[in-house]
């Protein structure tokens, strides 16, 4: 945690850390299974450190997304922006079940994953505003963020899934006991290339965890109106599947651990459906209320919010104090403010960058442009 002072008041915990329960066991929802002997255990153990870390990460994602919303409305972020708030438990739970050396690829609702995979809030926000400090040098924007072992950030729906299988093949081939987590949404689940990928992954027993983040709406279309079968965890057919409560970080973690074990033991791919929910609309252009009611959103917020759920669990088991969690909140807010400040003041990428990174060039090549006499140079 970063050093900070909150105005003139310094927050002091009322209890010493020795008073807190070091770990506790929680009941988690049973997962529906498809072609699997058994699902993950019905109880999950959470240590205090883990709890605080999950809380901090989820809170960071939540505040970062809300800040992005704010900046978007101020027109500092432009273009497209798909926010992840409500679904934090998915990103954090998945990361808790795998290692940083494993691989992950997802679609465009990627800010959360960019963070859990090692990106910093500063880099992410600067990428949203299109500045040179951004994680993709300002050239990608919201939908195209990448870090080590995180392959984005992909705009075309469903196109990332075959890619994920390819990464899984490389993992298997190189024999480093790594796997690839390949995410897509309920809308993408109807794309043809997903089924092509299921076939290839299963045929060649690739260590690939397919995860369908079912947030009940493909943009504005509810799952019932888009899919002949909404049992997304069964749609892998010959691939074993699990349906998981995506609002509970522990449930996601346990399921991911099971899935990772399955892949690493050479059994081939596995499919997980995370039942989750997004509070914002599909993107910032979508108010999100023309195809669902405000009541529905409110209900999910009050009954199943992932951060509240974790907080309640920790507090009721004396694993943390209210002040301690508040302290984390304050620190997170400060981090986001700093990042937003950086994102708004960092300069835009230089014009030379327009033509860089088209090809791998050695030596530099010329790029033809709007007029025959104006050629730009691509130097990388």
């Amino acid at each position, binding site marked *: 945690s970063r050093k900070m002072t909150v105005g003139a008041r310094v927050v002091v915990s009322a209890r010493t850390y020795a008073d807190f329960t070091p770990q506790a066991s929680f009941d988690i929802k049973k997962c529906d299974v498809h072609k699997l002997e058994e699902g993950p255990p019905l109880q999950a153990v959470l240590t205090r450190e883990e709890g605080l870390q999950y809380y901090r990460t989820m809170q960071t994602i939540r505040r970062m997304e809300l800040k992005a919303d704010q900046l978007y409305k101020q027109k500092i972020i432009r273009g497209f922006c798909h926010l992840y708030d409500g679904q934090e438990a998915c990103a954090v739970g998945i990361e808790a079940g795998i290692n940083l050396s494993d691989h992950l690829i997802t679609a465009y609702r990627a800010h959360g994953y960019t963070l859990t995979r090692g990106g910093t809030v500063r880099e992410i926000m600067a990428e949203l505003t299109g500045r040179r400090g951004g994680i993709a040098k300002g*050239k990608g924007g919201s939908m195209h963020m990448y870090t080590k072992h995180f392959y984005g950030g992909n705009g075309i*729906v469903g196109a990332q899934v075959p890619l994920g299988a390819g990464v899984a093949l490389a993992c298997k081939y190189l024999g480093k006991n790594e796997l690839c987590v390949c995410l897509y949404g309920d809308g993408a689940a109807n794309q043809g290339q997903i089924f092509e990928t299921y076939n290839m992954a299963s045929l060649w027993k690739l260590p690939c965890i397919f995860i369908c983040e079912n947030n009940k709406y493909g943009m*504005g279309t509810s799952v019932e109106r*888009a899919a002949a079968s909404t049992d997304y965890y069964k749609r892998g057919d010959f691939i074993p599947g699990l349906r998981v409560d995506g609002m509970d970080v522990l449930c996601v973690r346990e399921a991911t651990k099971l899935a990772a074990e399955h892949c690493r033991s050479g059994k081939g791919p596995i499919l997980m459906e995370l039942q989750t929910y997004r509070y914002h609309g599909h993107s910032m252009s*979508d108010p999100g209320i023309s195809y669902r009611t405000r009541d529905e959103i409110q209900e999910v917020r009050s009954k199943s919010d992932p951060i509240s759920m974790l907080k309640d669990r920790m507090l009721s088991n004396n694993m943390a104090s209210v002040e301690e969690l508040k302290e984390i909140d304050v620190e997170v807010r400060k981090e986001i403010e700093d990042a937003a400040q950086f994102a708004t003041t960092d300069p835009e990428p230089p014009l030379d960058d*327009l033509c860089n990174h088209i090809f791998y060039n050695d030596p530099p090549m010329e790029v033809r*442009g*709007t007029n025959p006499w104006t050629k730009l140079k691509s130097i990388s």
Partner: protein
Amino acid sequence: ALTAMAATRLFLSASPVKSSLTGLTGGTRSSLGLTLLKRSPDRTAEPKAQRRHAAHFTYHPDPAPAQYGPTQKMNLFQAVTSALDNTLAGDPTAVIFGEDVAFGGVFRCTVGLRDKYGKDRVFNTPLCEQGIVGFGIGAAVAGATAIAEIQFADYIYPAFDQIVNEAAKYRYRSGNLFDCGKLTIRSPWGCVGHGSIYHSQSPEAFFAHCPGIKIVVPRGPVQAKGLLLSCIADQNPCIFFEPKILYRAAVEQVPTEAYQIPLSQAEVLQEGSDLTLVAWGTQVHVLREVAAMAQEKLGVSCELIDLQTILPWDTETVCKSVVKTGRLLVSHEAPVTGGFAAEISSTVQEECFLNLEAPISRVCGYDTPFPHIFEPFYIPDKWKCFEAVKRMINY
């Protein structure tokens, strides 16, 4: 395919336009719109203060056509709705399908049609472009007038195989026993100010390389309705690209009855004697300003041609014009290498070699993916075109 709901909310007005087919366009400009109007760009301002709010062109409406009956004020998406309305009314086999078309479409091109004609004629498809076009081909072969919508031209690529390998070759490979001429594919097209990589593309050049299909791009509402109705009536599979930046920006008096504008006929918008300008879609309006600038600042008289149909294109009109003027400038947003200007350029130099006073100029996008932050530098705006005009005149 990526989907972005109501992308037009971003562009100009945030207030939903109550678009009934007999209502007026417009609606009130929201506060967002007012903010846009206040901050008009100053080209001499420092780059820091530059904001990309206003478009890179000014839209000049065409005069209301007199020969097609009563007209009504409509913008581009309403003109499209009107064309589709006429089609569904007159042709009982016509069906419209695509992602989100039932509620009216992300650009409001199909508003009200489902209520008027029923959910068996206007229906949503799941998220599957390859499936949409394949399905459309089948429906057309079986005798239905199938009008498929691909939500953004950037997403048309999963359907590329179906269009190029199936739709385009159906009549040919069956020796005219079967055809899918009743298929029309409509798709929003072109740059929009902040569309970035996957909401700004102009893929006409990819399809121009494929005999068997027709490609059409209108420049405004009157053209859009007439050309779309021609595409639907045409007995060949057609792709109709609609410039998304013009959906709300372009407002004209459009005839309410059905009418057709012939395909494969380029339109000479302005006669001139010194230089021929050729473009299609949004770029026509950019070149209109260039022609005005050329006249005012250089005393150069430009002939402006809207190509309208990309494939098969009207070689005669363009060549006749170049024979007269001796100079040709072709402009499009798509990258220059392999863009359609290359085809025009090559054909014209074959036909009119001895008439050329200067090399043919292509003012197009750079050979990079369509950038987000760099868009104002990327697009072939009027200054770049004007520079090209100057060089050609002084050659």
